[in-house]
């Protein structure tokens, strides 16, 4: 068994999506730690935006259960109205955004609203939050979710947050100004998207998984990267920082 949990590896993968100097729309749950990890390793110049109106150029001094926790305000570079951070993203200032989801399909469309017939859902999920806005307006989108056949479906029941729609130039056709998913970080691997067709392919499988296991847990025939490889394992340094951020393992164990 590896010396780390799938959640810890997912945090590492999420952090690696953040490039130094980028403006990142952070989101909920694992990205809260991924932002702190990126800041303390390869992306010290990254800036975090939070939809409650916060902007930070330093990681929060304590573990966050929600973006609204008091430590996230202390030392913020800006504590303003939601419309100001959404406005920055609407103009194209957010390079990358993170969201989670319940269901995703082969073109990266996400459902966090309703499972089953959308007019009479069998499961009512919490809804978009800021997810649909981030998917619409951020420069790139990184999605984080658990990998199983129930969640990775040929088509989602309801598109809360648009990916590449029906593929090709769909985003442009419907009027979205930019963006689209660039990575889907799961409990088994990392997916990326073909820039021409908008279709997902497997970029890497986690060291404790395999391409076969990923396929068995995906609801459509998943294409593979030409240079498919195992996901790079977390370094000792990355694990140390994650465990400093989340000593009780609330998010990562």
């Amino acid at each position, binding site marked *: 068994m590896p010396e780390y949990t799938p959640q810890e590896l997912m945090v590492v993968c999420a952090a690696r999506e953040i490039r130094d100097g980028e403006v990142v729309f952070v989101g909920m749950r694992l990205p809260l730690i991924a932002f702190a990890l990126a800041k303390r390793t390869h992306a010290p110049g990254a800036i975090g935006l939070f939809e*409650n109106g916060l902007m930070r150029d330093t990681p929060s001094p304590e573990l966050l259960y929600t973006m*609204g926790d008091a430590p996230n305000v202390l030392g913020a570079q800006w504590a303003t109205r939601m419309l100001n951070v959404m406005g920055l993203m609407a103009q194209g200032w957010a390079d990358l955004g993170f969201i989670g989801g319940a269901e995703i399909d082969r073109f990266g469309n996400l459902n966090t609203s309703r499972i089953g017939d959308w007019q009479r859902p069998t*499961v009512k999920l919490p*809804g978009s*939050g800021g997810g649909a806005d981030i998917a619409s307006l951020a420069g790139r989108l990184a999605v984080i979710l658990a990998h199983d056949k129930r969640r990775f479906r040929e088509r989602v029941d309801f598109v809360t947050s648009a990916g590449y729609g029906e593929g090709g130039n769909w985003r442009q056709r*419907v009027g979205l100004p930019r963006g689209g998913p660039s990575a889907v970080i799961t409990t088994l691997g990392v997916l990326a998207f073909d820039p021409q067709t908008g279709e997902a392919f497997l970029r890497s499988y986690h060291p404790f998984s395999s391409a076969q296991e990923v396929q068995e847990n995906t609801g459509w025939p998943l294409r593979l990267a030409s240079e498919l490889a195992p996901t790079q394992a977390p370094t000792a340094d990355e694990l140390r920082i994650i465990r400093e951020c989340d000593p009780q393992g609330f998010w990562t164990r």
Partner: protein
Amino acid sequence: MPANKLMSMRKAIERFVPDGASVALGLALEAMIPFAAGHELIRQRRRDLTLIGPISDMLFDQLIGAGCVRKVQAAWVGNVSEGLAHNYRRATEQGIPHPLSVEEQSNFSMALSLLAAGLGVSYLPTKSLLGSDIPRQNPTFRQGTDPWTGEPILLVPAIRPDVTILHVQRADSDGNAHIWGCLGICEEAAQAAQGIIMVAEEIVPRETILSDPNRILAPAFKVLAVVHEPGGAHPAPVQGYYNRDHATFRAYHAQTRSVEGFQQWLAEWVTGIANRQEYLARLGAERWQTLGVKEHRYAAPVDYGY
């Protein structure tokens, strides 16, 4: 002449939130959620409310479970650190305790709806949500064409709440209020509303609030009631006063998986007690102390002199 609008939570809810009202609350997102006001709505058995808010960290779920709500206009209803909202699910999936009408929103569209109302226009355009199924589910949205570029644009209709309930750090008895920390869409909801209920941790003299007018949240003349309710946002955090009580969110999530569990929770924390003071007494002084501010961090004073 400043008016004295100070009154108890019971009186404020009784006078200004009738059955069938549309109420905006939870506008700072995870922080400063007016739980005490929500619990009073439940105790007074309000019915057929329309709830308006961006995300709701547990409070909408409680009001829905207690049968107060007919319609929800929100971007997200759940429990932020724990996940799904059980009462919201039961109401939308099974009609328990009764069917619920849901108009899906995103955080941005919610903010724009309130901003539109606050600007006195019937809609605002955005490029968010184009291609999403949210506008299909929520027919109040309309798709248009940008008259300048000819590109598709989504038109977000104005939402004007009958009353907006805001939890703030401090206010005077006239309703001038200071808020700091997470602002979310508090200002937009205050501007959009017909009237405001201001719930404050502390009541301070008018001079204190007017000493820093840039930090004032809303025009006092729209404030209907000022309620002094220390601890009124628990288990949500209030910057400079207390932290988020994560354990309460966790316990509620576990306990409310069943209708019976929710009923027990309701009796213990809402209907079986009279007010927020009794709620805090039930929580216990020791627990309350663990949530307190560990180290005060004051901002530098600013000089408004001339």
